[in-house]
Every structure is written in structure tokens, then in C-alpha cells.
């Protein structure tokens, strides 16, 4: 039996409670709407350029399914190739182990500051918190991650983590928290803010001795890791320090170098709506005279093997973290990333987090209900993850949230007896009759308990004026 994962993928509040708080922030909704709509429009345009997009998606899904089918074997192959290329490969069963390995590796260098490339895996394992506790300061170098870190906040989107801040707020954060910032030139103009970040990080890039990254892909055939980015902070961290430590989820593997071609076409178009992101770095172990000379790779399980054991749930591990599903999701658009209580927000978060941790962890059982099942996420997903199917699968197999459980139990009671069902329908129609006169939308905003759990976050349709049986009998 494979173990479950832990770390920043356990929601501490039920989704409906967290969502209610986030819904009360009009600025957040405005920012999110603008951002998600802009990105999804760009994505649609760039995807339309490819008349073979569906074939590319199918190839992406097929390659990843192949990886999942042969995972242990490919992990061995990767380890062998990376080791032959001069890397040291470690394996971590969970977040705690991964953090301990990275902390020990940093300690061994004697450094007390590490530069970080934006990485979902290190966020998942709460690495920054672990390093800080060990007296090591992690410095985020991606502009958005830096904003969020300086603000003492958490990211709210996979791709644009600081999307919940606007320029004036970012200027305030920099003015207050960025050491040595030049207030005389710091306006809220995005180029001025980017310049401030460049100055702040430049000296660190040139002098840093240790960097920590994740990887977008890992190639079993060659032992290579791949990081896709746009600012150049990735290249800086992957090239200049002496020691490079990369935390890589075991599902990031692709079998062959040539397979990268499919994903390098799928990822930027799905993610930022670009033909290609500005920079991609691929490295295999150590190259004498070029880049880090101590290269460590921490292969992270943290619940992934358990997800792989579930034949329906397994497809979630194809995810390449492009965030396309977030940008098309009507629920994400309104509540934002923080409502999901995990580093993986939106539709992918709703299926990935509860699978990685097991549905009993924290409030993760509520996440599969954070969806209208409209299917937009499936259409957008570059690796064809059937997110709605998985949401339903998780709803069926997981513990039910209390409200829904009570409502469904009451409904089952009523429906088990035809007589009770008929009389329930009759009283419902009777109760609803005056509403039909006053309520032109034909929707009920609140049902009485125990059905109130259902209407807390959605409207219910008004019952029709006559039952089908009655209507049929009247003809």
C-alpha cells in the first residue's frame, strides 16, 4: 500500500467556508476576471494556430499514460542516466523526508541563504517553511513569487501567483519590504517595479552558492531535467550557483528526449498563450566548466504512488501544471486560489489534493464539490485529464460533506417509498405555488434544512406546477 502525501496540499477550512470569505472581496474578483479572461483568450488564439492540436493533446496523454504504466522502471532508468551524468539522485517518500534531504544538503554547503526558482513541488512540501525553521533563508526569484513572499502571503494561481495584487499594492509591498529599495524611482509602473526586482536580485544571482529548483520535465533516457520560464531568474539559478538541488515529482518523467517536443508545444500555448516561453533550460547532471558542479535531484513521491494505484484517479498525474483549467473555471474565477486551501487551486487542485493526501485529510473531502461539472476544464486540458469524471469519482468514493450527507439521506428516505415521494412532491408544489407568482427567475435561493446544504452555494429550480404522472393522467 502506497502512503499518502502531506504538506501544503491539506485544506484547513472546508471549501464552502473559505469560498464565502473570498467571495466578499470585490477587488479580487475583478482582478481574477480580467486575468483569467485575458489568458484564456490568448490561449484560444494560439491553440487555434495548430490544426493538429487534438493530436498533440492525445500524444501528450498517451506519453504520460505510458509513463504511469512503467513508472518504477522509468524511475530506475532516469536515476541511472542522471547518476552517470554526474548528478546525485535521492528519493523522498513524503514532504517531511524531502524537506529533510534538501535541508541537509544546504547545511552541508555551509550556506544560510538559498535562491529559489518557482516550483510547485517545493511549495507542495512546504520547503520554505522547513528551511526557515533550520535557519536557512529561502529567496524566491520569480517576480510574482517574490511579491507574494515579501507580502507574507501565499500564491493564488499556479502561473501568475500574485494575480490578486494590483500595481499600487505591489508598489506598497516593495516600498515596505524590499531591503534597499530606491524609493525615489519606485513608481507603480510595471517596468519600474520589475526594475526594482532586478536590482534587488542581481547581486544575489551573481554571488549565490546554492539554488533550489523544481523541474517541468525529467527525461528517463538522458537523465535530463527541464525548467520552463520567462524572466531569466530560472537560468540564473540553474547556471550560476555551485550547488543545484532540484525537487521533482515522480510523475514529471517522460521516456525519451524526443517526447519533450510534444510537451514544449503543449505547455506554453496552454499556459501563457505563447508559441514558446522566453527561456527553457535543459541540463543533464554536471557539465565541467559550465553551470553547477554539485547537482542533486530529489525524486518526490508524497502520495503520487497512491494516486497511481487508482485506475480512475491516476490520470490526474498527467498534469503538467499549465493552469489552463483554472483560467476557464467559473468557480475559480469567482473565489480565487486561496479558497482551495492548497498550492494546487482550481479544477486540478480539486482532484489532485484530495487524491494525494487521501480524502480524509483536513477539509480535502470538500474539494471535489468545488465545481459545477461544466466540463470547461476537460476541454482546456492539454493532456486530456477528464476532470469532471474524476470529480464524480471522488464524490462517489470519498466521505460526503455533512450538509450533502444529511440532504441525500433525507432525499433517499423520501424516494424509497412511492407514497412518500408523491406526497412530498405534492407538498413541495403546494409550498412553491405562491413563489411561482413572485419569483420570475424560477429559482429558489434557499431550501429549508436539511436541503439548505445544497442551496448554500447554488440555487435550486422551482418544482414544476404538476408532476409528470398528474400531467399524463390529465391528458
Amino acid at each position: 500500500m502506497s502512503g499518502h502525501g502531506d504538506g501544503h496540499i491539506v485544506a484547513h477550512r472546508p471549501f464552502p467556508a473559505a469560498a464565502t470569505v473570498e467571495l466578499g472581496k470585490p477587488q479580487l474578483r475583478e482582478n481574477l476576471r480580467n486575468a483569467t479572461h485575458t489568458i484564456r483568450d490568448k490561449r484560444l488564439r494560439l491553440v487555434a494556430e495548430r490544426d493538429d492540436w487534438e493530436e498533440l493533446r492525445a500524444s501528450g496523454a498517451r506519453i504520460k499514460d505510458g509513463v504511469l504504466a512503467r513508472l518504477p522502471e522509468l524511475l530506475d532508468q532516469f536515476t541511472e542516466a542522471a547518476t552517470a551524468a554526474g548528478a546525485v539522485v535521492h528519493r523522498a517518500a513524503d514532504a517531511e523526508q524531502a524537506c529533510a534531504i534538501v535541508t541537509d544538503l544546504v547545511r552541508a554547503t555551509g550556506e544560510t541563504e538559498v535562491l529559489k526558482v518557482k516550483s510547485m513541488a517545493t511549495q507542495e512540501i512546504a520547503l520554505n517553511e522547513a528551511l526557515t525553521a533550520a535557519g536557512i533563508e529561502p529567496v524566491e526569484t520569480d517576480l510574482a513569487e517574490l511579491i507574494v513572499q515579501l507580502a507574507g502571503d501565499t500564491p493564488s494561481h499556479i502561473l501568475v501567483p500574485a494575480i490578486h495584487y494590483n500595481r499600487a499594492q505591489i508598489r506598497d509591498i516593495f516600498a515596505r519590504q524590499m531591503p534597499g529599495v530606491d524609493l525615489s524611482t519606485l513608481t507603480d509602473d510595471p517596468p519600474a517595479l520589475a526594475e526594482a526586482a532586478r536590482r534587488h536580485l542581481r547581486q544575489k544571482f551573481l554571488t549565490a552558492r546554492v539554488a533550489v529548483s523544481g523541474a517541468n520535465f525529467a527525461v528517463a533516457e538522458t537523465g535530463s531535467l527541464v525548467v520552463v520560464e520567462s524572466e531569466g531568474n530560472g537560468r540564473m539559478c540553474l547556471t550560476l550557483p555551485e550547488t543545484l538541488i532540484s525537487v521533482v515529482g515522480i510523475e514529471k518523467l517522460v521516456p525519451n528526449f524526443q517526447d519533450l517536443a510534444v510537451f514544449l508545444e503543449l505547455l506554453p500555448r496552454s499556459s501563457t498563450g505563447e508559441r514558446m516561453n522566453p527561456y527553457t533550460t535543459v541540463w543533464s547532471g554536471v557539465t565541467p566548466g559550465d553551470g553547477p558542479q554539485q547537482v542533486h535531484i530529489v525524486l518526490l513521491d508524497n502520495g503520487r504512488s497512491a494516486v497511481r494505484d487508482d485506475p480512475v484517479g491516476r490520470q490526474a498525474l498527467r498534469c503538467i501544471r499549465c493552469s489552463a483549467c483554472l483560467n476557464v473555471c467559473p468557480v475559480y474565477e469567482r473565489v480565487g486560489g486561496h479558497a482551495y486551501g492548497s498550492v494546487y487551486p482550481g479544477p486540478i487542485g480539486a482532484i489532485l489534493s484530495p487524491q494525494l493526501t487521501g480524502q480524509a485529510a483536513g477539509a480535502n473531502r470538500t474539494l471535489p464539490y468545488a465545481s459545477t461539472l461544466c466540463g470547461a476544464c476537460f476541454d482546456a486540458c492539454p493532456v486530456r485529464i477528464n476532470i469532471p469524471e474524476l470529480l464524480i469519482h471522488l464524490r462517489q468514493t470519498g466521505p460526503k460533506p455533512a450538509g450533502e450527507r444529511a440532504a441525500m439521506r433525507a432525499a433517499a428516505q423520501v424516494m424509497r417509498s412511492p407514497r412518500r415521494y408523491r406526497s412530498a412532491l405534492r407538498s413541495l408544489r403546494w409550498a412553491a405555488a405562491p413563489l411561482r407568482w413572485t419569483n420570475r427567475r424560477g429559482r429558489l435561493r434557499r431550501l429549508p434544512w436539511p436541503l439548505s446544504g445544497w442551496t448554500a452555494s447554488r440555487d435550486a429550480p422551482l418544482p414544476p406546477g404538476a408532476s409528470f404522472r398528474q400531467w399524463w393522467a390529465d391528458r
Partner: protein
Amino acid sequence: MSGAEGGGEAGDAATGRPVADASADEQLELLTDRLVDYRATVGRCDRAGLPDALAAVLAESTRVVVPADLPAGWLTSHPGEVIRDQAEQPLALPDLDAAGVRVVTGAAVAIAETGTIILDAGDHQGRRALTLVPDHHVCVVFADQVVGSVPAALRRLPDPRRPLTLISGPSATSDIELQRVEGVHGPRRLAVLLVVEPPEGGGVVR
């Protein structure tokens, strides 16, 4: 799988689908469009005109840095100082970071469809820090290094285990209200010089 295997029509700039039988010229056009779209500057010359074209791009440069094996002939028209990175005595990072430093390199492969240049630390490219720390990267790409699609480009690389850098335009961020800002941490400017052999009769292409 992708463009390189496609058949039929010629490359179509509007839909972005260059295909295997798109003429070399169409691919160069597409590459140029894509690079300009990313705000890189693109120039063209023929082989004999390369030194003059490079000298023009480097006109106001105070310091030009090049990989150890960059052909000396490329920079014969440039009057300023040229500093070679040496394996035994690599240039220090502060030297690469100094104001006004430009770096001139070659490339391994370029991808027309996505406007991407691939460096693999092979001939004329040097180590990765060289093309990363200076503020301005001038990259020389020969027409026969240009391929249509990403899969074709990856197949062309002689050894995928070399450190690879795929460059599509200068450094950029869209993290603040999704407004694109160029030049965050990587080079702020990218200039690409396409070296195209003139068709029969010669002459500079553009």
C-alpha cells in the same frame, strides 16, 4: 506528430504551420516574424557580409565578449576590444555584468514556427553564463541551422545531454497585471543576425 512530418500545403504564416516542404526562404521569413514579434531585432547578411553586419550591430559597444572558439573572421570589421572567454581562465561574473557588455555567439538550431533559438554549448556558443549575464546578446544563425518545428529541432541536436538553452526573445515578465515587461533578469535585448547565402547572382537578401 508535428510540422516536420506534415505534408501538402506550403508554410502558412497566418496559421503558423510551416511544413516540411516549406521553402527555406519561407522558414526564414517565419522565423524573422516570430522573433520580431518577441521584440528581438533581426538582421540579414550573407557570409561575406557577416563582419560588416556584426560591426554595425556592435557599433556603440564598449566591450564585446565572445566564446573561446568564435571564428576570428567574424569580428574583423569591429574596431573595438574583443574579449575571449577561455576555459583555463573564464571571465569573472562581474566582468560579464559590467555596463555595456555585449556577447556575440553562434547557435545550434533555430525553430521557425516558434521563433526559438537553441544553444547547446557547442561550436561558437560558449558556456551558459556568457549568454545570460550580459545585457545584450547578439546571436548569429546560419540559414541551414533553421528548421520548421520543435520536433525537428530536437532531432537535430547532436547530443541532448549537453546543457541546452532555448531562447524565444528577450527576458520578459507578465506578473504585474499581466502587462508584459521586457528585461527582467536575462539579457534585456536580443539581436539575431541571419546569415543567408545569396541565391545565384549574389547580393544581400534584405
